């Protein structure tokens, strides 16, 4: 019996030699009409555009204007700053729980910009960037995190498990994997109606081991659903390395082959590549060619959550040794090299972001942090059903409020 084990543990030096190798093979970009039968090699490569020299190369350059990239840069930076500040807030005991997308900011922000109004994202808990990139008010995010009286979810949910239908962001839950299949059903509904909207579902690398992953891909394949199925492969599932979830002998993108769905592995820290792969998959879906499985190859640079300390199970230097770099730094460097951005602009932007995020936090704090302000207790009995049930009516009475 073989029990897989990561190459390195605390005390060892990180070893990313295999990932280094992935950096250097150019990948041809197929037509969106290419049958999946002809794309069975694709999932064993890594789609990239940004080189170590901060230029864009190859078939997958998306050709968007620099202003789009600057927007992505800004939203990713907001996401990071938001995460940093709120994590500190959590440490101060102002809320019960927090979780960041550090190192993976592109995977919330870029899909949000690449997809359209009317499309629906079925996110993981590490994709607040989607909301941020659609200008969802930071104040509302913090109010949710504080469960204060202005919390849009009225105190019902754990911090960060947002829901924002109007922003194309499906309701989160603590259970991993369970919404992946909803994205397929939602996409089928749109196809049934003949609408051009598509869905994008996300799941973590660890969570691909759930049966729900397989079921979603099966239905997506059988009914040719207009959906993008994304796996955020950040190498870790809490303390468990990715060799435990998938196999050591294949890639997550290759799971598409099992369903006759194209599978693509993309450098998730390469914003241009992420845009490009999403555009390809979205176009395929809208043109009626069905689902695409995308493995976003990235690295969870932070802890799993505020309840976790990764130094107990991986080398402390791993996050800074990731061979595919940091998505914000790489985009910034690319834009600067291309003459579309400057260090000075970046500094100014960052500063502005810091103060606006701080502002939102302060505003939310003024309303109240967790436990200091909350929606009326009676409201906890609302929304179990579309109409209240006698049990809840009586229980409200029993509670005596």
């Amino acid at each position, binding site marked *: 019996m073989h029990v897989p084990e990561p190459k390195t543990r605390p005390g060892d030096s990180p070893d990313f030699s295999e990932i280094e190798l992935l950096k250097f093979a150019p990948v041809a970009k197929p037509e969106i009409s290419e049958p999946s039968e002809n794309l069975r090699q694709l999932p064993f490569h890594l789609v990239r555009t940004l080189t170590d020299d901060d230029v864009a190369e190859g078939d997958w350059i998306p050709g968007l204007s620099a202003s789009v990239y600057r927007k992505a840069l800004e939203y990713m930076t907001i996401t990071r700053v938001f995460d940093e500040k709120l994590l500190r807030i959590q440490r101060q005991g102002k809320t019960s729980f927090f979780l960041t997308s550090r190192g993976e900011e592109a995977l919330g922000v870029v899909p949000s910009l690449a997809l359209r109004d009317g499309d*629906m994202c*079925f996110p993981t808990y590490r994709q607040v960037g989607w909301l941020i990139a659609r200008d969802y008010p930071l104040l509302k995010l913090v109010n949710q995190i504080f469960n204060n009286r202005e919390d*849009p*979810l*009225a105190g*019902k*949910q754990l911090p960060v*498990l947002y*829901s*924002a*239908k109007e922003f194309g962001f*499906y*309701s989160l*839950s603590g*259970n991993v994997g*369970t*919404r*992946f*299949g*909803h*994205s*397929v*059903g*939602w*996409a*089928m*509904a*749109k196809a*049934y109606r003949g609408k051009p909207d598509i*869905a994008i579902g996300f799941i973590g690398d660890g969570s691909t081991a759930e*049966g*729900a992953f397989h*079921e*979603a891909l*099966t*239905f997506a394949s*059988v009914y040719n659903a207009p959906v993008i199925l994304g796996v955020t492969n950040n190498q870790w599932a809490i303390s468990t390395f990715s060799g435990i979830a998938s196999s050591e002998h294949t890639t997550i993108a290759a799971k598409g082959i099992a369903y006759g769905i194209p599978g693509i592995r993309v450098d998730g820290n390469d914003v241009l590549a992420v845009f490009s792969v999403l555009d390809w998959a979205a176009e395929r879906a809208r043109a009626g060619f069905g689902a695409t499985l995308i493995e976003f190859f990235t690295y969870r640079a932070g802890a799993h959550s505020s309840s976790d300390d990764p130094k107990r199970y991986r080398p402390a230097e791993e996050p800074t040794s990731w061979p595919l770099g940091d998505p914000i730094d790489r985009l910034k460097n690319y834009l600067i090299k291309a003459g579309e951005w400057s260090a000075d602009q970046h500094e100014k932007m960052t500063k502005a972001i810091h103060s606006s995020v701080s502002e939102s936090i302060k505003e939310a704090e003024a309303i109240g942090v967790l436990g200091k302000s909350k929606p009326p207790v009676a409201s906890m009995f*609302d*929304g*179990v*059903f*579309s109409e209240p*049930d*006698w049990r809840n009516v009586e229980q409200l009475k029993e509670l005596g409020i």
Partner: protein
Amino acid sequence: MSLVHALNSALDVMMERDPDVLIFGEDVGFFGGVFRVTDGLQEKHGRHRCFDTPLSEGGIIATGIGMAAEGLRPVAEIQFADYILPAYDQLVSEAARLRYRSNNDFQAPITVRAPYGGGIFGGQTHSQSPEAIFAHVTGLKTVIPSNPYDAKGLLISAIECDDPVIFLEPKRLYNGPFDGHYDKPLEPWSEQYGSDVPAGYYSVPLGKAQIIRSGSEATVLAYGTMVHVAQAGIKESGVDAELIDLRSIVPLDISTVEESVKKTGRCLILHEASKFAGFGAELSALITERCFYHLLAPTQRVAGWDIPYPHAFEWDYFPSPARVVTALQSLAAH
């Protein structure tokens, strides 16, 4: 009209009225379902409105929830209630919770139909009655008809309901009533109570029990097939019992139950599911809590034994009219 036809008619009526109603499940499309409930619907309404799914109950419900969240009114069939368990996580963690956790931002108005219960020699995995594991879940409604008229009206209400509904169909009643006397010849639905089913649209509200027979000496609570067994048992017992068909266990029509038990002072609860921690326990507890000072005798339960459903012992397991008689007579003796 048989119960199968009544259900088929409910689906047909709703598909005609509302293009958002889609029907799917294992073998429900071209074939029309292993119990023929969706017979003819694909032919009439098209392949995109009534179709076969992969053999994956979890996938069926997940897909349905996604559709429902988008605004459709999916009606999913699970081939046997025994096989709903692979979808239990989707039903509990997602369908039941979507509205609450998103503070009404999203809702999941899916109807999940499944044949349930015994009496057809289906053995351990084609006979179970899982209603208790749904009744305990906040956010799910659970409906169980006992006759064709109610079946159609309740199914229409379930599809129109903005909440997820588990709709359990007593498979032993599909093609005729059954009162537990398994050695009697099969009777068809025609002429039976509840078999007069209007062709068009009508609805029976969720959460309203029906008093099938009024009586003074005891109250009998039942649903599904056990309503018929109760009727036979009451008749044979000579006890003047009031029989209530709950029709939906969530929402539960507590006022009808309470009123009746306060009047009769005695209560017998019936279900096919095994007894321990079954839904009868909740009914018994509620009666204690709400009618204690009116009770003349301890509330009793006649239910399946606490064993899996054993094929050769179908009629030793299935709660018989004789057990109802014994229980009623012992109740009335107090």
